[in-house]
């Protein structure tokens, strides 16, 4: 990911900035300019809680090159109490234990390295609670 794009995504990667549609109340993450549910264009900015529940998950055994060291790893769609959904890696547990209903906290972690000399890209990952 080029540095400028990573920099532009700081609001959602660092602060979990989302948007609530003023028309239907749906929460989108990351924020969009058009609501995918009602096509509304008026939004309220909100920040997702750093906790949520796994809605669905999978285990990646053959990942992209940059994630080979981490395989097998769990990817999950996590829903926060605000209704926002985000796709995150779930770490610090056995990947096979990441199942729907698992409560996770969203913790700040290194997502990927841009090669040996590039920037380090950070964001949030799920960590099982308790």
């Amino acid at each position, binding site marked *: 990911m080029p540095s400028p794009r990573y920099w532009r995504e700081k609001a959602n990667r660092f602060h979990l900035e989302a948007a609530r549609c003023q028309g239907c109340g749906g929460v989108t993450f990351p924020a969009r300019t058009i609501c995918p549910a009602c096509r509304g264009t008026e939004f309220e900015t909100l920040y997702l809680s750093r906790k949520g529940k796994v809605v669905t998950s999978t285990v990646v055994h053959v990942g992209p090159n940059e994630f080979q060291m981490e395989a097998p790893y769990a990817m999950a769609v996590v829903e926060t109490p605000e209704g926002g959904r985000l796709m995150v890696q779930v770490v610090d547990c056995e990947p096979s234990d990441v199942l729907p209903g698992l409560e996770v906290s969203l913790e*700040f972690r290194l997502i990927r390295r841009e090669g040996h000399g590039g920037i380090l890209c950070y964001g949030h990952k799920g960590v099982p609670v308790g």
Partner: protein
Amino acid sequence: MAGIVGYGAYIPRNRIKSEEIARQWGKDPQAISRGLLIQEKSVPGLDEDTITISVAAGRGAVARAGIDPALIGALYIGSESHPYAVKPSGTIVSEVLGVTPEVHVADFEFACKAGTEAMFVALGLVESGRVEYAMGIGADTSQGAPNDALEFSASAGGAAYIFGKERLLVEVLDTYSYTTDTPDFWRREGEFYPRHGGRFTGEPAYFKHVLSATRAILDRSGYKASDFRHAIFHMPNGKFPLSAGKQLGFTKEQMAVGWVVPLMGNSYSGSSPTGLAAVLDIADPDDLILITSFGSGAASDSFVLRATDLLPQRVERAATVKSMLEGPRHYLTYGEYAKYREKIILND
């Protein structure tokens, strides 16, 4: 008076036992564990580094302080494992914590003392009135060369402290620093692992500075060892801090809570700050607390602290050190450890 208004700590969940490392190199596990008084150490995950540890600890500190993070006017991170050689860890941490943009940020390095160094400067800025709040963080994902004595101790973790003048959790009664040029431990530019002077790291380095700094702060503050409920000394291994404390007149009971090294190893810049966090987690109002750090090169910072009535009310706002030391852990084999610490050479 200035003091600590919030604190937090973070210890990764991965662990490796001393006996697992000893077995790898054909050493006697019992002798190693007995000699260093370290049972196991924390190991960072592939996605954990000084920045992520600082954010986790910093979030705990903000939660306990209950302040708007935008009011933090200075943020300093002490570490010898900043992920970038050129680009501050502090900018990322400040941004994530919501401290930017009106903040003075710097990364500090002073071997294992960089954490208290950051705390020392943060405190000074608050005392001077230059900023309302300042955060000092000590965090590391320290490296020890394979089959070196350091490999049994070098671990990961850290703690963050917010200093202010109102609603104090802990009063800072006095500080003192003792510094000389002593080449006991170093890592040259571009080198992956640090090197050390073996037994030279003991008497002329660790003990000289820790004992000198502690004796001086006791002398100038007018307190004696028996006045303190808790004492924390930098923990390069289990033995050094106990020996230093004993020479200074402290009992094992006074050092027990902050002596976290047997279960987490030496998290370098995070070592004594994490020990202090463990003490604050259980301290009672009016408890006197002494902390003396040590950083090779070499120097010690000492702080005399007193807990306030507010401290116990704020502890539960963030994870305690005990909950992380004794909570969910994942034990690694040496092979997994070598992978996690990137000791294995791979093709691009």
